[in-house]
């Protein structure tokens, strides 16, 4: 006896199928009239035969096959030659196996003479029952008998509704297909664009908006200047373009440690070539040299007694740069470096890292050039943005030439170096050590405060900061720079300088309060570099007096600045005063709009006492403690 799993009740249970018989709507063709007539006898016979149901194996097989057909599309041939097509629904298994179809239609009408006319209409499909005596044969295509049990099979083809698991878990052997490249068939005519649209030369005359408007009448509101810097098209356009191209070329031609950049620029990475695809193309950031240098830097700092840097670059954020200017020692340098790094932007961090690395290595930096370069680097770093530096570098490049390339971000270093050479002369005047100030802010602050601070020896008042060096290096640094040429200018100094432009200083030193520290002013943006009158710096500094109180007891430090400006810490207000964009080392870099758009609401804060004022501006994310004495 075959084992058939029919416990759930066969879909073609007697009662059920009989019921179907009764409810059959009826058929149109004459041959079908017999269906109804034979309904009752079937019913009777069904009952009658139920008792004596044969249980032969062959019958079981038949029943099994019929069960497998449920839901299948079948064709039933009947005696008179007609062919009916429909979905197999049920059969009279206990009787004589009449067939019940759903959505059935007569495909070929054998009873009626064939008449082809244009007015032949197609009948709507409906359930049909074909009595056994009419039945000649049942045809079913693509039936799988033995695999019914496979779960995947049962959900085989549901063309209208498919759930993800069905689609993805097609158990029934969709084995690997032999893949052949696609060749366009005959009816794929209009695909000219497939042919390498990028091979053609760039058509400068093509204006997509024009075309769109012409074709579809769509008016575009696209304004390129909303998304990018407005180009000043004028007589200087050419020159500016040339400069820009030059810078671009230089940038792209730089050597870089970064794998991705190197690949982009076409350099074969000079390190080992055992890099797998993941390291080469992954976007995951791995440990960069810079972070690793932190540890080294401190230890090596002592080696460079240059001290200098008096924290000038003291990036406000780090606030660690509280060393007094007098402390021109490694520590200070270190501190400044730390601060610098802490407050510098990421780019400068990298640069600093390089510097530190260079400093650390101490090797190869034997050349005077290098050291000077380093120093200049530091100075150069202060500019907030790389491109600024680059621009400067370009200017100075010829002067300093490229120092010997270091393995680490040489380009940046050297560029900075070159730049710094010039910058040295420039910014150093700034009083420098300004724990609060950071980035360009420092420079600005410092420059303006030099009279106030006077901590550093007169040194260079040559405040001509095309590069906003953390002038913090101040004169002392400058002096030191001179003297320090032979040996590596403390990376600290460089670092501090470099840190000028970055917001984070991984090597930040412990912040020590400097009561006379100048307030911090967020560093400037690219535009600053473009053409900023010195005066603006000074202006800003006034306002920025109170800017960065990072960890300082405000009362003291702020004292002097209060006099000439209401103390309210509001970088935005400061920004308003000067046309440049300030980069808050801690906060996000605001676009030009921030500056231009005056924020009058901040002004009325002026009247508030410092405490309150500071409270208002907390959105800057600069933490500070105000202690009013």
């Amino acid at each position, binding site marked *: 006896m*075959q*084992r*058939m*799993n*029919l416990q759930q009740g066969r*879909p073609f249970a007697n009662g059920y199928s009989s019921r179907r018989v009764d409810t059959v709507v009826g058929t149109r063709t004459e041959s079908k009239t017999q269906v109804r007539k034979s309904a009752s006898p079937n019913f009777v016979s069904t009952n009658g035969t139920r008792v004596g149901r*044969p249980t*032969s*194996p*062959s*019958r079981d*097989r*038949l029943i*099994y*096959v*019929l*069960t*497998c057909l*449920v*839901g*299948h*599309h079948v064709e039933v*041939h009947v005696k008179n030659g007609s062919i009916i097509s429909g*979905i197999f629904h049920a059969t009279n298994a206990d009787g*004589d*196996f009449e067939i019940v179809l*759903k*959505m059935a239609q007569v495909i070929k009408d054998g009873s009626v003479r064939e008449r082809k006319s*244009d*007015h*032949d*209409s*197609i*009948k*709507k*499909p409906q359930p049909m029952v074909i009595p*056994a005596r009419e039945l*000649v*044969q*049942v*045809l*079913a295509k*693509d*039936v*799988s*008998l*033995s*695999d*019914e*049990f496979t*779960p995947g*099979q*049962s*959900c*085989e*083809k*549901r*063309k*209208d*509704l498919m759930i993800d698991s069905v689609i993805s878990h097609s158990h029934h052997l969709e084995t690997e297909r032999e893949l052949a490249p696609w060749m366009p068939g005959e009816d794929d005519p209009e695909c000219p664009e497939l042919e390498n649209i990028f091979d053609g030369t760039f058509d400068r005359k093509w204006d997509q908006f024009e075309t769109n408007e012409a074709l579809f009448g769509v008016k575009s509101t696209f304004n390129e200047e909303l998304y990018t810097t407005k180009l000043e098209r004028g007589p200087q356009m050419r020159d500016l373009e040339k400069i820009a191209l030059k810078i671009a070329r230089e940038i792209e031609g730089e050597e870089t440690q970064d794998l991705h950049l190197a690949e982009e620029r076409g350099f074969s990475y000079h390190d080992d070539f055992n890099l797998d695809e993941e390291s080469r193309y992954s976007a995951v950031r791995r440990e960069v040299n810079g972070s690793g240098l932190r540890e080294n830097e401190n230890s090596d700092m002592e080696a460079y007694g240059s001290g200098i840097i008096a924290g000038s670059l003291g990036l406000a954020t780090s606030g660690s740069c509280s060393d007094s200017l007098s402390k021109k020692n490694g520590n200070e340098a270190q501190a400044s470096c730390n601060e610098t790094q802490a407050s510098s932007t990421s780019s400068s961090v990298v640069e600093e890292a390089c510097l530190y690395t260079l400093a650390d290595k101490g090797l190869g930096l034997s050349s005077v050039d290098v050291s000077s370069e380093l120093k200049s680097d530091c100075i150069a770093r202060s500019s907030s943005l790389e491109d600024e530096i680059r621009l400067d570098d370009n200017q100075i490049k010829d002067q300093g030439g490229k120092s010997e390339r270091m393995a680490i971000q040489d380009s940046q270093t050297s560029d900075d170096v070159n730049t710094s050479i010039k910058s040295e002369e420039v910014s150093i005047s700034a009083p420098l050590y300004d724990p609060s100030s950071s980035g360009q802010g420092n420079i600005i602050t410092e420059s303006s405060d030099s009279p106030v601070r006077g901590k550093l020896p007169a040194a260079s008042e040559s405040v001509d900061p095309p590069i906003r060096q953390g002038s913090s290096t101040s004169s002392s640094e400058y002096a030191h720079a001179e003297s320090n040429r032979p040996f590596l200018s403390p990376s600290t100094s460089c670092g501090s300088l470099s840190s000028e432009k970055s917001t984070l200083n991984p090597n930040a030193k412990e912040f020590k309060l400097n009561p006379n520290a100048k307030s911090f002013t967020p560093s400037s943006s690219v535009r600053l570099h473009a053409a900023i009158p010195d005066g603006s710096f000074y202006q800003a500094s006034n306002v920025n007096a109170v800017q960065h109180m990072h960890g300082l007891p405000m009362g003291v430090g702020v004292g002097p600045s209060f006099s000439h400006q209401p103390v309210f810490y509001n970088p935005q207000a400061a920004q308003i005063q000067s046309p440049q964009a300030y980069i808050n080392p801690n906060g996000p870099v605001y676009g030009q709009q921030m500056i231009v758009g005056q924020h009058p609401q901040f002004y009325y804060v002026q009247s508030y006492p410092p405490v309150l004022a500071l409270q208002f501006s907390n959105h800057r994310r600069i933490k500070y403690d105000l202690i009013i004495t």
Partner: protein
Amino acid sequence: MEGGNGEELAVGCVLSLRTTLGDEIEGQIIAYDRPSNILVIQEGSSKAGPRRNIRLLKANYIQDFTYLRKAEDPIDPNKCYIDLAGLQAREEASLRQAEIEAERIGVGVTSEAQSIFDALSKTLPVHWDKTVIVVMNEVRVSSPYLPENVIGGTPAANDRVKKVLDFERKRLQVRGPG
């Protein structure tokens, strides 16, 4: 009624049959139920794979047959399981599919109209409204489905339907005049 009637047709045998209706069949016997006189044949024995064409034939319509060879039982009686739930699901799916397809067929429309409808449905959303083809729910094309019969909708939609209709008609003429 001649020939195979009354014989015990063994399961697994490969036969070649001819029916009284003129069909010629070759296949392997899966089952034969004597009381109902139904012979279940699995066609395409040479074809690989689990899917075959199954034919249930009333044995009394066999005109003659030829015994070709004996092969083993195509079904393993010990492994015959039926997934009723799956079957029902399949049936529902088939019914759904059939209903969808049925809706595409106009009732009481000429076959020409139906072919026009089919052609339009390739690129436009169409459905029947009695004997009117409704395109994009706004443009109506009534008998005899000529460009003049395109009514309604926005001018743009109307023109588009006219164009497509024209194009399809031409294509139908080229394809098969008749």
